[in-house]
């Protein structure tokens, strides 16, 4: 049975799902939306996620037969803010951070802003590249150089960023977020980063998904204050 809150997801928002009726694995698992298509005559709404096999829940997810029903709670969290007037949007994804950026890239293209968004995806090695089509102009980076640019998305962006104001949109592992925040600070760019943190409730009730504020004054909740934060708000290295 799907427990679904009303509303259409925006890029950056996530869902939580429960894949097992048993008590192990127990907690719902969060996944970012990677696409959303409104319902139209004769066709239901359709949402997508991109996920990576990690442990029990993702294994069960992968074993689900097509057409299976899963218990979903969505949409949750905030969303990526649009680029300000004159900002070039650059989307940096690491590994499973790709999902929400695909959604954002599609939304930005659809909105048809003056500057086309550029997606930069980093993976460790070519074999880890997801088997889904990337948007036009996407740059692939691999740590080992086995495909595309050798290095991280942050390296690529540092070397190839256009002149003028940039807004970074980032989602990926903590070290990448740390590097993106540092790059944005050094260049004076805006940066909207999507945080990952273990979650219990996903709706702001348990304080489990806390992220340390950059100014040391306490914590913000990844699930309901985020998952998207302005890079300067969070101590990205202190989250795990």
């Amino acid at each position, binding site marked *: 049975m799907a427990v679904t*809150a009303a509303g259409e997801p925006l890029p950056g928002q996530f869902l939580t799902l429960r894949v097992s009726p048993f008590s192990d694995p127990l907690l719902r698992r969060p996944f970012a939306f990677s696409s959303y298509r409104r319902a139209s005559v004769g066709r239901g709404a359709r949402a997508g996620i991109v996920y990576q096999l990690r442990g029990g829940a993702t294994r069960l997810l992968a074993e689900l037969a097509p057409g299976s029903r899963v218990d979903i709670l969505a949409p949750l969290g905030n969303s990526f803010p649009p680029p300000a007037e004159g900002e070039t949007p650059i989307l940096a994804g690491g590994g499973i951070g790709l999902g929400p950026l695909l959604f954002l890239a599609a939304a930005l293209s659809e909105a048809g802003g003056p500057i086309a968004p550029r997606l930069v995806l980093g993976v460790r090695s070519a074999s880890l590249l997801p088997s889904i089509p990337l948007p036009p102009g996407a740059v692939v980076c691999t740590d080992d150089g086995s495909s595309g640019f050798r290095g991280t998305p942050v390296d690529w962006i540092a070397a190839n960023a256009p002149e003028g104001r940039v807004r970074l949109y980032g989602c990926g592992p903590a070290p990448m977020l740390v590097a993106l925040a540092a790059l944005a600070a050094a260049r004076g760019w805006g940066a909207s980063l999507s945080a990952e943190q*273990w979650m*219990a409730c996903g709706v702001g009730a*348990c304080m*489990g*998904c806390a992220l340390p504020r950059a100014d040391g004054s306490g914590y913000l909740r990844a699930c309901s204050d985020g998952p998207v934060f302005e890079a300067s708000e969070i101590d990205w290295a202190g989250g795990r």
Partner: protein
Amino acid sequence: MKPDLRVSIGGLELANPVGLASGTFGYGSEYEELVDVDALGALYTKAVTLAPRTGNPVPRIVETPSGMLNSIGLANPGVEAFIAGKLPGLRGRRCAVFVNVAGATEEEYLEVLERIEAAAGTGPRAGVDGYEINLSCPNVKHGGLAFGTDAAQIERLTRALRDRTRRPIVVKLTPNVTDIAGIAKAAEAGGADAISCINTLVGMVIDVGKRRPVLAMGSGGLSGPAIRPVGVACCYRASRAVGIPVIGLGGIMSSGDALQYLLAGARAVQVGTGTFVDPRCAMGVLGGIEEWMRAQGVERIQDIPALLEV
């Protein structure tokens, strides 16, 4: 015949026996769109302490087999911000509201309660109908062992709280003790109107790859279905040790689980971690209890404990 679901705690009437456990439902607004809180019997707030607490360093949670550990660390805005920011919203609740009170010293507990008493007043819709005293806070005076482990101290604290309010006092017991029956008796002797059990069990998970505990604080509190058998056993013992009502919790995911607690001697239950897994868990528990009572011809909640054959 519609079963009578009402439960009385120290003179306060709860519409039904199902409540939402402290720390798992915030102050009632977070799950607003998903859960009809007012259809339930009671809401137990996140702990309120004297000063604001930002909470423990992160990570604060980790999943375990059929359970989870948390070390949230009583993150809360402090009693003044609670009164200014949360109490007004709670005044609109139709279910009973128990404010969960915590502190590191006896004085802190008393001060929190006194300030809320003063702010809430005595009229209806006060925003607070009773207190749940969280004794699992590390006790600074007792070398870090939690408050809830020393019977004499519990009796004294309960009595001091008792002197300061006419609202029902629920004392929440930790299972991390040798003799939970003795602790329950101490709370009763101090004048508690009810006890709730159990709070979390102390647990630890180590990240073998990183060679350090997963939680930044090292250990945390274990909750969820894993601890249900411990909770039911504690409830069974505690309810036989005292005459006041016992409120059972720990790992309740379904009405069957809740009925285990009620048969074990509880007069009411709370759903904690279950809400994380399924936000509508408590509503399902309530519906299932009513259905079971109907099917079994049980008229009143308080008749259930006597049905247990031992």
